[in-house]
């Protein structure tokens, strides 16, 4: 057994996105490295892969029955805003604000622990939502939640 600890530099969580156009899949989008942007300063990341459920009860059974319905998949995170990734972007991938504003389909890849050869990731495509930048006098640096609402399935892989 091995815990997935991400507390050392080589084991950091990493989120790459590409919103420069249409691709066959996220793997193809990530291969176009010039337009791939790494989202820095992640504060927390939550991967939601939740199958939907339909439950019903019958008079001739002591317990509920259940069948699955299509999954709701998303990646929720909180980031500290960085001028380049929030406004400028990387080559043909615009900044996060523009991607959200334009509702651009975005391909993503999230590395669980490090991004070297052999490291695991989950990838897919989706829309950026839930952007809500905030700043206060006690925490005078902009931060924002961000959710990638995934279109279709997650795809897991190893670099």
């Amino acid at each position, binding site marked *: 057994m091995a815990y997935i600890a991400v507390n050392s530099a080589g084991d*950091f*969580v990493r989120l790459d996105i590409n919103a420069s156009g249409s691709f066959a899949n996220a793997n193809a989008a990530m291969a176009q490295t010039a337009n791939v942007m790494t989202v820095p*300063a*992640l*504060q927390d990341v939550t991967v939601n892969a939740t199958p939907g459920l339909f439950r019903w009860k019958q008079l001739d059974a002591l317990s509920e029955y259940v069948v699955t319905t299509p999954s709701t998949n998303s990646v929720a995170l909180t980031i*500290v805003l960085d001028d380049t990734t929030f406004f400028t972007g990387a080559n043909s991938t615009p900044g996060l604000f523009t991607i959200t504003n334009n509702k651009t389909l975005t391909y993503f890849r999230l590395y669980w622990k490090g991004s070297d050869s052999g490291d695991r990731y989950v990838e897919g495509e989706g829309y950026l939502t839930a952007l809500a930048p905030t700043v206060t006098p006690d925490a005078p*640096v902009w*931060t924002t939640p961000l959710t990638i609402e995934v279109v279709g399935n997650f795809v897991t892989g190893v670099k």
Partner: protein
Amino acid sequence: MSIRTDLLTHLTQELAGSSIRVSTELPYDSGGKPLHEKNMKVLYLADSDIRHTELFNTLNGPDVIQIETNIQAYCTVDAKNPPADVSDMVTAVILSKNVILNHHIMECGVITSQTEDRLTYSFQYRFVTI
């Protein structure tokens, strides 16, 4: 320039002509007695205490670091016959916090204490930046 240097420069100008002088020396003890008690009507600024703390921890670095600087200042006057402009000095020292730029928290407070015939003003500056 350091925060202490900026404060010294400003206070030297601000208190010129008053009965309080500003010293560039640190408020060390001399002969078992603090310098500000030995040399009354002289304002001394101590060296900076600097602390780097983590404002936001991030999963993939770099973390957002907050830098807090604390500086203490002292001035002792004759408790029986304090200078007429001592309250002007207190106001000037407190307002001098505003000359330090690029900090989102600029605070200064004063505590007075009396020992025998000496009245000591102890100022505490606090500056915070990212």
